[in-house]
């Protein structure tokens, strides 16, 4: 059973928020939270000055994606607060998957990868990307309690009998 999105069971019965694929890591969540806090401070400052804010200051691509996919309006304090709570809960409870690659992966690659995790395991899976140059190719995945070596090295180890047979034939 796929877990329900956070917020779906809230008392106001509003649908749960969606975590866009652009938001990949726990660092992204923290950065978005800081950005939202800054935005909130901006609106508080404007309210103290009595100025009316008609447009949201230019937000980051990730915040814009989060806002658009959830159809929220950052001009509304309630939506900003909802997003802040959502990010706080995600940061605290979202499952973290460590993935190590031989080289630094590109964002679109990570988006495809996190898409698999979010569609198959949990909608709020966050990645923690690491580097292990000695694995040549593939990746190493570490979940809460498990370790999955999906590298070529492990692939070679599994095929050791075939490789040995090939080498003996070559001799």
């Amino acid at each position, binding site marked *: 059973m796929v877990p329900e999105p956070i917020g779906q069971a809230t008392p106001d019965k509003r649908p749960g928020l969606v975590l866009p694929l652009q938001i990949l890591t726990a660092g992204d969540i923290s950065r978005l939270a800081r950005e939202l806090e800054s935005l909130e401070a901006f609106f508080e400052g404007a309210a103290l000055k009595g100025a009316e804010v008609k447009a949201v200051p230019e937000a980051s691509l990730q915040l814009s994606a989060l806002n658009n996919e959830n159809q929220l309006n950052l001009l509304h304090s309630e939506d900003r607060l909802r997003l802040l709570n959502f990010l706080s809960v995600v940061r605290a409870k979202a*499952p973290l998957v460590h993935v190590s*690659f031989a080289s630094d992966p590109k964002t679109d690659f990570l988006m495809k990868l996190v898409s698999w995790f979010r569609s198959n395991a949990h909608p709020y899976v966050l990645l923690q990307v690491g580097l292990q140059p000695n694995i040549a190719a*593939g*990746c190493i995945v570490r979940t809460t309690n498990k370790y*999955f070596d*999906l590298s*070529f090295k492990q692939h070679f180890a599994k095929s*050791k009998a075939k490789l040995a047979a090939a080498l003996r034939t070559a001799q």
Partner: protein
Amino acid sequence: MNAWGLGLVVGALLAAGAAFAWVASVLGGSHKGHEQKDALTALAEKDVERIFNDDFREELRNRARLHFEKIIGENAMFLQQDLRLTTSQLNEYMKGEITKTLQTEFSKYEQSIDDAKQLAIDSISKTQMAIEEERQALHANLEKEFEAERERLVKKFEDNMAEIVNHYVLDAVGSEIDLSDQLEFILSELESNKAVIVEDIRSGA
């Protein structure tokens, strides 16, 4: 003339004196008695004195000396010849003895050398046999060690084969492998482990 000749001459002279004295005594007869006999004796003595005077004696001495010197010289010559002959014979004898002794010693020495040579040959043969045995044992041991080392290396290689191939792939094409090209492989691997991964993520969430 030797001593015998001189003795004969002196004896002949004495015999002639005695015969003359006897004839005189016979001729004088008993008529004249002792006087005549004394006269004859005195005459004989006188003749003897005349014959054997100092010159004659000196002559006899000289002759005897010459004869003696001749005899001495001859004897010396004979002695010298004998001595030379003896020396020559002695030399030959010594040569023979020395040669025989040397031959004996040489034969003994040669025998000793042959014995020592044979002993050395035997010793060398034994040493060669021992070395050959040692070499064969060493060769067998080395072959055994080589085989064990080869097996150990092969086993080590097979044990670390994945690491070695991975290292080779990393060195050979590591810089050319793009992560985007690996996405399909990674997703297929994730699909292979999907149940365990999903279970662990959901249980930890």
